[in-house]
């Protein structure tokens, strides 16, 4: 048995909130630079340049990458051999508030969704998973709501064709169009139940995206780390179809409509096929630590 104080977790969560909001993910930055080099549309190029410059300014001046510092979402994989002293969820929420205050991050959470009182920083959305071992992995994803608002779920028939599924995903990207800060990272959850597919779609955003210079076209050159080759093929096809939509940065055209497509799957019921799509804006922010 390994003992850990919830106080320590609070501190780590606070640091992760700041880190996530101020330092753009390396893989995203790489993909943006890659897209910049590939882009032929001049206006799109200029916007990508501004996005890359923005990441630099935020890093150098310790400023939030985006004013929407998101709904802080905290994923915790906790080893079964760990015993936590104190109230874990309370510690996480306190850590979020501490980090957001210290980092001058925005208070965007209204405690009453209908009354819409003055916003604060808590509570976070907390997902806890029990895993083997004696380590604890904490990931903070501050997801902005411009793109969260574009999330879609569809319960397909189990006999649905791959074309129907693809069309639903493309339609979701088209509906978001210029409004949710493209170029996007497209998170897709396939399988499970309605709620679980949504969770998978968001979790897909946590996966690293990779530049892959030996295939064709800007979108298709960015490879995900999905090992399952059928899924990998689907990700690739979707990415290249999305990048033919000519949405482009800020929706003003260009070949860079998405930086990556990431898919997560789970077994599902014989009677259904849930598909959830969670889009992320180009400001896909995240920080992780293993204790």
């Amino acid at each position, binding site marked *: 048995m390994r003992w850990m104080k919830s106080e320590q977790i609070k501190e780590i969560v606070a640091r992760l909130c700041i880190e996530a909001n101020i330092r753009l993910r390396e893989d995203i930055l790489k993909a943006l630079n890659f897209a910049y080099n590939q882009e032929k549309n001049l206006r799109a190029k200029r*916007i990508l340049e*501004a*996005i890359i*410059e*923005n*990441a630099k*300014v*935020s890093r150098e*001046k*310790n*400023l*939030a*990458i*985006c*004013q*929407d*510092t998101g709904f802080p979402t905290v994923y915790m994989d906790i080893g079964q051999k760990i015993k936590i002293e104190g109230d874990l969820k309370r510690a996480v929420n306190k850590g979020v508030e501490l980090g957001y*205050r210290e980092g*001058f*991050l*925005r*208070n*965007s959470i209204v405690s009453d969704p209908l009354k*819409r009182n*003055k*916003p604060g920083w808590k509570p976070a959305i907390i997902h806890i998973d029990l895993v083997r071992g004696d380590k604890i992995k904490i990931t903070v994803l501050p997801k902005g709501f*411009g793109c969260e*608002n574009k999330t879609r779920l569809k319960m397909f028939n189990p006999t649905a064709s791959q074309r129907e599924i693809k069309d639903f995903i493309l339609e979701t990207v*088209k509906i978001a*169009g*210029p*409004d*949710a*800060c493209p170029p996007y990272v497209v998170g897709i959850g396939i399988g499970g139940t309605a709620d679980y597919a949504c969770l998978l779609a968001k979790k897909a955003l946590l996966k690293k995206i990779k530049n892959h210079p030996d295939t064709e076209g800007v979108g298709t050159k960015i490879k995900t780390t999905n090992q399952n080759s059928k899924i990998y093929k689907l990700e690739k096809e979707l990415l290249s179809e999305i990048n033919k939509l*000519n*949405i482009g940065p*800020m*929706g*003003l*055209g260009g070949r860079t409509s998405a930086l990556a497509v990431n898919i997560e799957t789970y077994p599902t019921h014989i009677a259904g096929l849930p598909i959830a799509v969670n889009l992320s*804006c*180009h*400001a896909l922010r995240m920080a992780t630590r293993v204790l």
Partner: protein
Amino acid sequence: MKKIKTPLDGKQITKLKAGNTVLLTGIIYTARDQAHKRLVRAINQKKKLPLDLKGQVFYYCGPTITPKGEPIGSCGPTTSSRMDIFSPAILRIGLKAMIGKGRRSEEVIEACKRYEAVYFLTYAGCAALLSQYVMAKRLIAYGDLGPEAIYELKVRDFPLIVGIDSHGKDIYERRCR
């Protein structure tokens, strides 16, 4: 590249064409969902507004908390379409420009034409970069809304692209409709 200064008048506005890049210097006011709701309610009830909107510019933005020693924190645009239901009423009483990101409704395009107003886009998701063009920030109204309050921002060469011009031309027309 065109340079404009606030307050804006019809003459400056009508020269702007969808797709133009513009640098704006002067005063702009942040206002988003809840501030719009309150303003339109006040207009409907014929109550006095907390600021004179004639010739002014609204920026759909809720900045982060201002770091010590800085004029403002990160301050990029939020999704404009959420303000669509309120904008015509506000343009009617004299607002001349809006700054945000993404598409607008037919009603907003119509109102831009009717009231000689313009909708600007600015770099979406580039909030740290945009903060570098802001010299000062001051609370004007609805402080209880926190980041959604109305703040006056003094800006210099704030980078914009004309999204909808006063002739009703929309940069997203054909592209995304």
